[in-house]
């Protein structure tokens, strides 16, 4: 007679005495909390890469996206302090929404260009890597926020503040794109030659987003979109 016949249905069989549940891989365990994610973004990108290509990647992608959006909103709060009033609330929302929209607009081209460069990642893994790059970008921006804030206190020139925000964003973006390139190179064992092309597209979309979401540095003028315009035209008008 078969021994297992005595086990009633829907009741888990007892574990053998020495059996223990499979522990999560070390890299996955260490990037669970928000602090661990920020640490991994800044200090240990290899661990983050292995976690993003591991089993619990989708949860991590969600946390990275949340970090990116909250970091953008935090920086947006400082941007909104310059015009003041309702912009303190509106600009963080606009910038977070704009970052999310830019990422979604550019994600398909990133995936296809990486595939053309020989990358082996799936579309979801590429999304995770993009979320990590954006989280790093916004983490750096949040770090620069006090610098921007001190200028907000003293200057009244929107042109100067616009140029300063653009400079800080450009520095953060350069670091984020560089880290994305290095991470992909580490994962695939070869440089991703098409990544600079995608970087240019992403920057262009983000810059146009500043025109779509305007006004950012002048007083609040309602929630509707501003008239259609190319970003350079709105900057130098």
């Amino acid at each position, binding site marked *: 007679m078969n021994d297992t016949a005595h086990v009633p249905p829907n009741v888990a069989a007892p574990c053998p005495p020495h059996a223990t549940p499979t522990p999560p891989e070390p890299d996955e365990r260490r990037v669970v909390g928000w602090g661990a994610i920020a640490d991994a973004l800044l200090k240990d990108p290899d661990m983050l890469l292995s976690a993003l290509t591991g089993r619990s990647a989708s949860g991590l992608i969600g946390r990275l996206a949340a970090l990116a959006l909250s970091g953008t909103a935090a920086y947006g709060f400082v941007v909104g302090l310059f015009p003041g009033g309702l912009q303190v609330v509106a600009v963080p929302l606009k910038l977070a929404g704009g970052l999310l*929209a830019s990422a*979604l*607009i*550019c994600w*398909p*081209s990133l*995936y*296809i*260009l990486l*595939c*053309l460069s*020989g*990358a*082996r990642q*799936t*579309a979801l893994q590429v999304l995770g890597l993009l979320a990590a790059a954006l989280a790093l970008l916004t983490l750096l921006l949040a770090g620069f926020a006090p610098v921007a804030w001190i200028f907000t206190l003293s200057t009244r020139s929107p042109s100067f503040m616009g140029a300063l925000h653009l400079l800080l964003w450009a520095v953060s973006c350069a670091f984020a794109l560089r880290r994305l390139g290095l991470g992909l190179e580490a994962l695939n064992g070869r440089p991703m030659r098409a990544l600079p092309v995608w970087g240019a*597209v992403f920057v*262009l*979309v983000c810059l*146009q987003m500043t*025109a*779509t979401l305007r006004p950012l540095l002048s007083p609040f003028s309602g929630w509707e979109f501003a*008239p*259609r*315009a*190319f970003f350079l035209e709105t900057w130098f008008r």
Partner: protein
Amino acid sequence: MQTFRTHVAHLWSAAGPGVLCRMDAALSAQLRADDDGAPLSLAWSLLIVAGMACFGAAVGAWRSPQQVLYGAVKMPLMLHAVAWLSIVANVMLNWLLGGGLSLRQVRRCILGALAVQALLLGSLSPVFLFFACQLPGPESWQAPSVYRYLLAALVASVGASGVVGYARLFRLLAALAPDRATAGRLWLAWVLTTGLVGTQCSWMLSPFVQQPGVPVPFWNTAAFSGNFFEHVWRHVLNS
């Protein structure tokens, strides 16, 4: 329903965007084997339709809803016309130049290259759509300059993606032809053939973005009373 899902999953894993763009040794081996195990031509034809329809619609969004519809129809039509109108000539050139490929291999190579182009353009369609919806519209006073920029972006992206697609075609031919020199000759011959057909097809199916203030036609109004090269020649003489 389950069978349909299985078919789609099989198609995706054998010839999906990732597989096609990476174009690794497994795909080359599959093409070299020349069996009818996976419907690669069907999969890549569908990718051409999907990618180019998205791109055509995104570009046309700047002009009008009618242009969106026309673009979504005309762009895939153009690439399929290029593939199917040049296929007999390409098969013959393949035999004459010593390529030794079968009709199925030629068809798969051409459709694969065009599908890479379509995928690249399709992946850029959200970017084009965003700019088409954000730049000053066709009714604004800046419309003529926006039209020129949009047209330049359209030509540049179609051209650049075509270069990428044909670079992939060379990689395929290098894996399938007897030697690299033959692959090079064959590639050049196919580029010239499909280029010749492509210029005429794009001429007949233009405009993909009609200039402001003029009704949007489906065909080029001069499509059946001349050709691309005559048009260029007349421009040269008049300038």
